[in-house]
């Protein structure tokens, strides 16, 4: 094991806020849609408020509970030869990318990332499955550092 799997570490705590903001936007859209549905379809029949209420509860759960949990399950590690990203609980995925197989690398900062001081490392591989592996919620300096470490290993394919 020691040779392959790297030491896993959590991402920046700021990523929780990024997730929360993202969930809030999504939740707002959800509530709006539910509200319109309520008004148009259910209110005339006297069942108004059921769907909207459910949407509000779901959105609150998404904003309050989900970000901590997602954050807690998210771990990444860069070892001698491997990049490993572990995430999810109900559907848990543990991805390993050999550094030699990486095609190219991006460091991405979206508007939310800028707001909360994080950035994502995006690793492109040649595989059709997992063609893009993302390590989100990294400090910008750390993302750049990882990019440089991985770049060292990227082999230029002969053919």
């Amino acid at each position, binding site marked *: *094991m020691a*040779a*392959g*799997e790297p030491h896993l570490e959590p991402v920046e705590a700021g990523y929780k806020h990024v997730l929360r903001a993202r969930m809030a936007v999504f939740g707002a859209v959800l509530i709006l849609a539910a509200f319109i549905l309520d008004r148009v379809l259910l209110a005339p029949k006297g069942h108004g408020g059921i769907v909207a209420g459910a949407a509000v509860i779901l959105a609150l759960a998404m904003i309050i509970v989900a970000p901590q949990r997602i954050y807690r399950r998210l771990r990444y590690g860069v070892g001698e*030869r*491997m990049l490993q990203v572990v995430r999810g*609980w*109900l*559907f*848990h*995925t*543990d*991805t*390993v*990318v*050999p550094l*030699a*197989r990486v095609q190219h690398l991006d460091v991405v900062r979206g508007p939310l990332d800028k707001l909360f001081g994080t950035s994502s490392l995006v690793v492109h*591989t*040649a*595989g*059709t*499955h*997992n*063609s893009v*592996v993302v390590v989100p919620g990294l400090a910008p300096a750390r993302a750049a550092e990882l990019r440089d470490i991985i770049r060292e290993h990227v*082999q230029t394919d002969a*053919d």
Partner: protein
Amino acid sequence: MSRPTPTEDRAVGGPERLHPLFLLKGLGGSLRGLGGAYAALAYLIVSGEWRLAMFAAAAFILVGGVGAILYWRRFEYRVGASEIRIDSGILSRRHRSIPFDRIQDVDITQGPLARALGIAQVKFETGGGSSGPQSEEGVLQAITLERAHEIRQLVRSRRTRDPQAIVEQSGEQHPVFAMGPKRLLTAGLFNFSLAVFAGLLGITQTFGDALGFDPLSQKFWRNVLAASAPLQEFALAHRAIVVAAGSVLLVVLGAATGVIRTTLRDYGFRVDRTDTGLRRRRGLLTRTDVTLPLKRAQAAVVSTGPVREAFGWKELSLRSLASDEGGRHAHLLAPLARDNEIDHILAELGWRPIPAEPRWHHVSGAYVWTFALALTPLLLPLAVQVVLVWPAALVLGSVLLVAVALRWLAWFRTAYALDEDRVLVRTGWWRRKLLVLPFERIQSADITENFVSRWVGTASLRLAVAGGSVAGEIIPAIPKAAARQLREQLLSSQA
């Protein structure tokens, strides 16, 4: 890929146009592209506006023709010293440059019309993930077959930078794999298909009303039978014979469909070794000529079915970065072959033969019962059916049983084995598949588990291959520790 060209310092080659006969083909293409216009035309005809309809049709042909002419006028390609340049576009121009180094292969396709006219479509395969509309950019719609072969030869020789390679391999040497008429017929019989009935069903569903009869309604048959009373009496008297005759008809039609479809696609199937890859030619009406570069082969897939395997037949295809016709990433190298023929083709690729009896590691029985567990929600409608409409419950019940039974059969076959520097993954019972994947072609590996499998302690290993399916190559339901160990083994060879 289209970079501005700092030309003059290297030869870019003289501009060339598509063959003028492209106009014939292009007109067809433009007419196909008009889409909604046909609905309008049909409406005009149905509503009896014949003159207007003819006028509109003439206008469409004119527009299509002018479109084709403009496209032809504005399309130029150049074959340079190290790249192909394509300048296209009627209003917005696109200047595309494809370096020879990036061209995986040159595909030549000829439809029936093109064959009669001696022209061919040429496609430059760049092997990028460009299976969208962008891939159209590397296509020369119609040039002479001769020029197509010249360009292909040129690209290949430039790619290898080996002057020897310019010598055209004569196609008449011994092929790596070929299918004679007898083999073709056998393959056709195995491709038994009742799809034609599905097609008829669809047509009558859609157009039955317009035709004024519906062959699928009872009334239609009752009327037919009423009109032929003696036949009706015969049918009632000899029910068994009618059923038997119907079944024979189904079998004959299904087999004929299979044979016809296979002949159209695989007639003259032939794989030859060239200096950079395997060249495959096939097709009765549309003749295709595709070369798979050896270096691009990612994994081999040997597939078969229970009946086929009983007769010792298998199909070989290769996963590849370059895409086959229709944009699929599997190159079919042998539609129907014996084990030794498959090993022979693999040997041409420089691969060892597939071991007959490797040490299979079977997957956990959770593969079956987690599947059965996932079906349990369907027991609720089943229970409702049993109470309310019990004959319907028989249908749903047997469907569920068959699904679980097939999964159970598949479980016996689902296994993986390590063969020195490659992994073999065997899956499926009805659609049997054996994947041969060299370790060095694994791009990444996931271990996935969900709330059920975690409870059981199993996980799935998903291996990503370039040109494989989006879901990856899955080894399901293996104990978690074994999954980790296997992943470690598979990836350890990577430098």
